[in-house]
């Protein structure tokens, strides 16, 4: 099975202080492989480095160590971004645009032809339930509607890799079901999804494998079912319990990576 995303011993230190002389460690020695056709969850407490890893994958920031590949090519090569869709954890869009204008504009930036962008826009507004609000300015949208719009823009190019950074934030029940349906549809078509989420029910329901980051280190990666099992007795335990154990035991770092 080919890898859609690969991280080999990746590290990232953000410069801090005057002239960037200081540094804040975000991730260190992370090695991870996300295969084609799987739904992979990236879990961890706040400031664990999940978003940094996502940003490295999307060429939004550059790693200070290691090697990162997207579709087998270095992440610095932007062409492969045409095969990626991304939902930001706190999406914000130009408030002066309508949903239709925004999707057509972002379609152009994703290098879709004008007619293709127009037809995908109409189709996706229907999918995310905003077809009747397409010509309203985004300034009038609720947080949930903006989140739906974020999902629509990520799907414009029918991406082979969909990166969802906390996509259910601010969504109602119907919105969360929409996210799950989209993920299921991507998997059915053999596409890959990388999900960053704190909603463990959602993770258990839709993900095949997961990776757990704590303090910038990958402390565990494997099948969801494998993690939700007591390491001593082998009995099934809630995912939340397993994660709490991992978050509290930095000693496990590296051993399970």
């Amino acid at each position: 099975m080919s890898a859609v995303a690969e991280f080999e011993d990746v590290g990232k230190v953000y410069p801090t202080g005057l002239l960037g002389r200081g540094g804040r460690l975000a991730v260190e020695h992370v090695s991870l492989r996300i295969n084609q056709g799987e739904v992979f969850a990236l879990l961890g407490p706040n400031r664990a480095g999940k978003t940094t890893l996502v940003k490295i994958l999307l060429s939004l920031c550059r790693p200070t160590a290691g090697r990162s590949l997207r579709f087998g090519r270095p992440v610095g090569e932007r062409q492969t971004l045409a095969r990626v869709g991304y939902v930001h954890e706190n999406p914000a869009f130009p408030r002066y645009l309508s949903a239709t204008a925004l999707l057509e504009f972002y379609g152009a930036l994703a290098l879709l032809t004008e007619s293709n962008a127009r037809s995908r826009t109409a189709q996706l507004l229907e999918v995310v339930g905003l077809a009747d609000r397409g010509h309203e300015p985004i300034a009038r949208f609720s947080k949930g509607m903006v989140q739906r719009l974020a999902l629509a823009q990520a799907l414009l190019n029918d991406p082979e890799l969909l990166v969802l950074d906390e996509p259910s934030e601010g969504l109602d029940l119907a919105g969360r079901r929409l996210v799950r349906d989209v993920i299921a549809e991507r998997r059915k078509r053999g596409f890959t999804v990388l999900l960053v989420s704190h909603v463990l029910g959602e993770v258990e329901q839709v993900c095949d494998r997961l990776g757990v980051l704590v303090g910038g280190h990958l402390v565990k990666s494997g099948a969801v079912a494998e993690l939700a099992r007591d390491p001593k007795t082998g009995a099934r335990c809630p995912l939340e319990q397993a994660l709490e154990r991992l978050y509290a035991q930095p000693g496990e770092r590296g051993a399970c990576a």
Partner: protein
Amino acid sequence: MSSPEVIYVWRWLIRDTFRQAMANYVFWVMLAASAVVIVFCLSVSIQRGGPLRPADDIALFEAPKKDPQRALDARPRGSLTLAFGAWPIPLGRDGVAAVRDLLLLLAEWVVGAGGTLLALIWTAGFLPEFLQPASATVLLSKPTPRWVLLMGKYLGVLTFAGFQVTVFIVGTWLALGLRTGFWVNSYLWGIPLLLLQFAAVYSFSVLLAVLTRSTLVCVFGSVIFWFLCWGLNYGRHCMLALQSSMPPLGSGLRGMVEACYWIMPKPVDLGMILQNALQAEDVFRSFEELQTIQRIGEFHPVLSMLTSFAFAVVMIVVAARQLGSTDY
């Protein structure tokens, strides 16, 4: 990314900038201001605006004719009326000179100073807004390179400014031409010259936007920078024009002023080029130092334009490199 793809993306970014300008009302406010000035120009007329002296009285190498009656004829005879005839102003010379003066006033002060200031203040927020992390992360995760996005937005603002300048210059030129019958075509040079001035100063605002993503810094930074350019440009000309009547400056200071002059945009020079194109220098007297600088051959219009343009290019390249290496 191929060239047609770059142009395609730029077209969308230009369209986006116009939408942004319309949503901020800056587009409509500037258009309304232009409309007011065009209506003002439509209210102008020239009464008896023929040549000041009879044609046969202009003799460069002869003694002036002493006929007292002819001397009376030589007094200003016509008037320029504003507000549809409500406010007559006696002509200093003839009609065409009055129109040239008015055009220079409009180009240099109304649009060159007032318009540029408004455009700098209003458009300074466009890029910081565009580059805010929450919205930019999604944009920057698209396959379009960052320099294409930045350049597209810069071109968008220039297209917006160019559109407004064109409406103003062409509108006032048509209005005054129709009302007075004097068509001063060189006034149209105001479009590229004013746009060049704006492009150079706005490029500095682009760099500030990339470095700080702060609208406030961009507004104040670009306006202060514009004044600084004006001051340096005028100061350098004063230094050269007055060098014979003042104690000599140190070579270090002089070299520094010269270096700054050649590196920075030159708003004063661009104004002088427009003034010369309008042939308005005789009647709308500029500063004495600026006339001296032209007389002693220290004013180089083509080099002034090229170096102002080069400044804009360097600023955009530096800003694009900075954006390319910024972590989001």
